[in-house]
């Protein structure tokens, strides 16, 4: 039975994406407990609340108000993000039938969709091998799986739409050049830009930046505006209409944050040096580890080493190839690259609060260029047999290095999450479920013994959202405590007797309090007054 090339390609892409999904679900394949740092619990909370209430909500529930009330500066008690990402989480819980596992499967799918969107763009611009190789490398992208582990999920999904926005504008311009006036691709592009706004405006800004630079390069080449003004107006109306219709409480917040300038007291007087360094000397950032700004670690292996630099020569070669060829397909990538450069240097223009977060989509821009650079090597020979040998030889080198350097590092990190102490354990989960079913909705709970105040209180925030009760993470809320959550489980997991003794000593003060729950190393006490 003959199988056509098209079918082989489809099977190859499906296998690639399933391999990505297998990799990215490593943390949950044998452990369905929640994981995720920083914002993860927040992005679980609202969808989970919607599912449990069987009703949508636009107000922040009580237990989340202490963290997010006021973050929507126009509607302070309303949701601080548009609700679509969270609603997808709620849908996954209902469709999949599981509170946590189904949700995290949806997160893994949404966080890895850039592999498909990138493949689609690069396939249409450059063909199968650049697309396959760049998407293959994206499976192991440290930038992307770190954002996934940190819980910045809406932002991650939003960036995945940029390749599609670029594709749509590319197709529109192809028709425009041939005097075919078809705005359909611009309309679909607007739909995708609106979707980016609905998930995280940063993705929309990344797309607008890329489209603006791409358009500028086209304008220089063809000496005219690369679109019809009425089509542009139509697409702008569609973008505003969809964003307003589906996230009416978040439009004002977006503009409020967009025009907020960095405090001049903390800004350096001259920041033009940032234009000359790729990671512009970022170190000791309170929110990000140093390795996030080291090329070899973030595009190779987290352990570093010489081989971790393997992609850099191909990246430089790819940029040279694009700049030398300057076909319209190349201009798409150049526009995306140059816009990325400027968007990661917003501090130079006084918008310093978000430029560091723009590094999150660096791999989306770099990896196709790396693949193009690698494949351009074969063009140095005019002999067809040597060209073929070089091409497939370099592909083999690419695949081996991607797996042995990037893949091995990614596997270690993702697999290591499976039994991480930073995750909620089954005893904590069961206790949280009991609290959800039995304590009043406005209960304020202080935990003693749960690991986490030193790690942005991630685990304690998870307890809060799983129990749908206010778990105190800020010292100025301690006097609100109605219930104490005494947790020996982390001390037990660490086999730290001193830690357990400290908890025991604290618990001795609760002899006159009412013990309402005691199971698997966790106790909950109703108290009148806290003494810490």
């Amino acid at each position, binding site marked *: 039975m003959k199988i056509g090339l098209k079918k082989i390609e489809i099977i190859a892409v499906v296998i690639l994406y399933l391999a990505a999904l297998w990799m990215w679900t490593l943390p949950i394949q044998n452990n369905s407990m929640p994981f995720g740092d920083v914002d993860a619990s927040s992005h679980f909370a609202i969808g989970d609340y919607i599912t449990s209430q069987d009703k949508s909500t636009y107000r922040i529930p009580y237990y989340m108000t202490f963290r997010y009330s006021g973050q929507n500066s126009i509607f302070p008690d309303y949701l601080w993000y548009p609700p679509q990402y969270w609603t*997808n989480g709620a849908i996954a819980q209902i469709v999949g039938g599981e509170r946590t596992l189904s949700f995290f499967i949806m997160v893994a799918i949404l966080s890895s969709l850039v592999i498909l969107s990138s493949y689609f763009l690069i396939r249409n611009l450059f063909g199968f091998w650049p697309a396959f190789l760049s998407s293959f490398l994206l499976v192991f992208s440290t930038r992307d799986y770190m954002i996934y582990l940190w819980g910045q999920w809406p932002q991650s999904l939003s960036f995945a739409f940029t390749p599609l926005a670029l594709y749509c504008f590319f197709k529109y311009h192809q028709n425009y050049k041939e005097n075919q006036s078809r705005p359909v691709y611009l309309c679909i592009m607007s739909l995708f830009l609106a979707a980016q706004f609905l998930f995280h405006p940063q993705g929309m800004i990344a797309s607008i930046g890329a489209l603006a630079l791409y358009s500028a390069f086209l304008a220089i080449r063809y000496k005219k505006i690369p679109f019809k003004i009425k089509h542009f107006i139509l697409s702008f109306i569609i973008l505003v209409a969809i964003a307003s*219709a589906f996230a009416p409480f978040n439009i004002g917040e977006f503009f409020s944050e967009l025009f907020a300038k960095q405090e001049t007291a903390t800004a350096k007087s001259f920041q033009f040096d940032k234009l000359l360094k790729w990671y512009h000397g970022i170190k000791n950032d309170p929110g990000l580890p140093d390795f996030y700004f080291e090329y070899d670690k973030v595009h190779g292996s987290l352990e570093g080493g010489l081989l971790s630099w393997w992609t850099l020569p191909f990246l430089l070669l790819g940029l040279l190839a694009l700049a030398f060829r300057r076909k319209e397909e190349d201009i798409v990538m150049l526009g995306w690259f140059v816009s990325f450069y400027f968007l990661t240097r917003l501090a130079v223009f006084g918008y310093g609060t978000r430029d560091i977060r723009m590094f999150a989509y660096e791999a989306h821009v770099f990896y196709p260029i790396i693949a193009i650079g690698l494949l351009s090597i074969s063009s140095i020979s005019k002999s067809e047999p040597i060209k073929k040998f070089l091409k497939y030889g370099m592909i083999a080198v690419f695949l081996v290095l991607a797996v042995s350097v990037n893949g091995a590092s990614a596997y270690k990190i993702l697999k290591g999450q499976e039994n991480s102490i930073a995750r909620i354990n089954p005893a904590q989960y069961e206790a949280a479920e009991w609290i959800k079913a039995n304590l009043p909705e406005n209960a304020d709970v202080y935990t003693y013994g749960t690991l986490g105040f030193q790690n942005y209180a991630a685990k304690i925030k998870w307890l809060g959202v799983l129990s749908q009760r206010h778990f105190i993470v800020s010292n100025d809320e301690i006097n609100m405590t109605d219930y104490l959550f005494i947790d020996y489980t982390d001390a037990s997991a660490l086999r730290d007797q001193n830690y357990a003794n400290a908890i025991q000593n604290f618990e001795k003060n609760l002899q006159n309090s009412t013990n309402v729950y005691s199971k698997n190393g966790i106790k909950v006490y109703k108290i009148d007054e806290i003494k810490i």
Partner: protein
Amino acid sequence: MGAIVLGMLAVFSALALGYAGFRTIIGTIIIILLPFYLLFSNFNISKGEKLIFSIFAAIAIFPSLVYWAGFILPFRAALLGAFAAILLASFAFKIYFRKSQSV
């Protein structure tokens, strides 16, 4: 080809992620993605565009519809309602385009 791909996804989801994984992945495809794929199938675009556009449009528009319907209906009912609405829209487009072609 579609059946083969769906089969691969079903086998993977069951083996790697168990029953919940199978239900989540296949359920997401049927309830969220399929209606949009049928909708986009009415338009004169390539198969690749239909597939990719439907995936990315679905994950943005479907939750938008469900979310807002979830204020007037129970959320689970809103989910089914959005599914039905997109399916109906895709059939309505199909009939409309068929009629305009025959005229």
